[in-house]
């Protein structure tokens, strides 16, 4: 076995992008400003861009990892928490706590509800599509879940006595990293780390599932337990991400697909690269939306959907033989 060179390469990319993310924006902050606490740009770097950069890494890793894990479990390269409704279910959980006013009194309830929504989303997705899901029923189940959860988010926000409903609907369904603080980082990080730990624990089970459920079960994999832990892991990682950024789609679709050729196809080996690659993709996309010359900043969720939509289409064409 050769040593995997893609891991150091990806890690280097994330470090380079993180540096760029701290420097780039409407105000360019060069290296010299990093060390001068009197420089006004110092505050921009460490109070505005540092939390944003950390969140991009955390959320990107969570989404990339969740996508890779869902694809591994379902043996379906089109699985992605953002595209197939899991993230929208998380948003619905979060929005319901706002709607009933719990979020104002007990702030920790919002991420918990988002995680619960995401877990229910994964379980519903797997239940609707059934055990022996074809590519088509699985993707359809996800699209249905996506539209229902999205509509419910819009409905809840519209019914709430809230003059900014339209803006808030957009904020939840098309996520962004704008104006986040360290508070969001400390809120999301433990949940994402816990979810990632659960997903990595399933590595061998996901590898064995490449052979199908019957073979995996015969190799000692407890399918029911694996499914529950997967729902919990993906729910924690995706739910916590959505709680702090809103829905950001396609990361979990694009990243594992691009990295699969370098990892030899086993779902277990794809997990860590997908997490690092997800961080890189969200960092890069966030730098791009900051640098786009427009009156209001383009939302990160919009930018990734604009990128991911055509990508999804291209993958579908590539998979036509299996779909037909």
């Amino acid at each position, binding site marked *: 076995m050769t040593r995997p060179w893609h891991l150091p390469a990806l890690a280097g990319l994330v470090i380079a992008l993180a540096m760029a993310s701290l420097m780039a924006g409407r105000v360019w902050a060069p290296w010299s400003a990093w060390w001068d606490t009197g420089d006004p740009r110092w505050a921009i770097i460490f109070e505005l861009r540092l939390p944003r950069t950390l969140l991009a890494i955390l959320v990107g890793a969570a989404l990339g990892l969740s996508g890779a894990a869902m694809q591994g479990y379902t043996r379906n390269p089109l699985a992605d928490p953002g595209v197939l409704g899991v993230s929208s279910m998380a948003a619905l959980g979060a929005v319901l706590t706002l709607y009933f006013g719990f979020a104002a009194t007990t702030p920790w309830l919002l991420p918990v509800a988002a995680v619960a929504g995401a877990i229910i989303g994964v379980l519903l997705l797997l239940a609707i599509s059934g055990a022996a899901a074809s590519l088509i029923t699985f993707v359809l189940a996800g699209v249905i879940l996506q539209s229902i959860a999205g509509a419910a988010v819009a409905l809840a926000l519209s019914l709430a006595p809230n003059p900014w409903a339209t803006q808030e609907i957009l904020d939840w369904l098309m996520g962004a990293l704008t104006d986040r603080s360290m508070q969001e980082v400390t809120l999301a990080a433990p949940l994402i780390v816990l979810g990632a730990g659960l997903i990595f624990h399933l*590595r061998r089970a996901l590898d*064995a599932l490449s*052979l*199908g459920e*019957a073979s995996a079960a*015969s*190799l000692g994999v407890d399918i029911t337990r694996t499914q529950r832990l997967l729902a919990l892991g993906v729910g924690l990682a995706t739910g916590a991400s959505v709680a702090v950024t809103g829905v950001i789609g396609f990361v979990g679709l694009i990243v594992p697909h691009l990295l699969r050729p370098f990892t030899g*196809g086993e779902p277990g080996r794809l997990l860590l690269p997908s997490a690092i690659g997800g961080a890189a993709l969200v960092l890069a996309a966030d730098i791009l939306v900051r640098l786009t010359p427009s009156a209001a900043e383009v939302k990160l969720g919009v930018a990734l959907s604009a990128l991911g939509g055509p990508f999804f289409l291209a993958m579908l064409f590539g998979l036509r033989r299996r779909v037909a």
Partner: protein
Amino acid sequence: MTLSASDISVRRGGRAVLDGVSAAFGAKGLVAVIGPNGAGKSTLLSVLAGLLTPDAGAVTLDDVPLAAIDRRALARRRAYLPQNARCDWPIAVERVVALGLTPTLPALGDLPAADLARVAAMVEACDLAAHRTQPVTTLSGGELARTMLARALVGAPEILIADEPVAGLDPRHARDALVRLRAHAHGALVIVAVHDLALAAQYADRVLALRDGRVAADGAAGDVLTPQTVRAVFDVDVRIERDSEGVGIRYL
């Protein structure tokens, strides 16, 4: 080692798929399970492998019910190869074979060196050396079947249960597969569902015939594969010719 099934019944949708099947198996030998489509062969194999809990009856391994044995401990002793086994991701052949060692692997880290050697030897033994690093999704049917057989055999299981491992294979590859199973059966129990009666006659020590979820015949291959039993199980008339080169079955 004894694997024994007593009075197994499995009902599905109000219909009895298996109806009071009992059979005991020793430590060695190749057992062919034959029967028409829908006779319950696959269900019986799943039950014997401990993957399906019967509605009535129990399977025991050395007098311990399968349900009471730890999944991983059972997986180290028994391998199961489902019908039309395949792999959904483009994983290299040697890595697919290595998946057969899943029950013995530590939770983290790559394959231990001893396991790499076992995988390499099994790849060699199944004539897959030329395809070692080829993605399994690009293999031909015969190569894929050999890979899956290698995956099942790599852990040197005491019990191998294979559901129609030769379905869809050309005559040469079907024969090759049975020769490999036969070789494994010298030191282990191999239970195989097959449709090809001539292959069963030639390679099996024992034949278990199912019809409508019941055991229609069970015994030495030569005793079970007679025109009378074949007629009773499959509703076809056959002439069976045995000579020094093997067994021929002519459907009349």
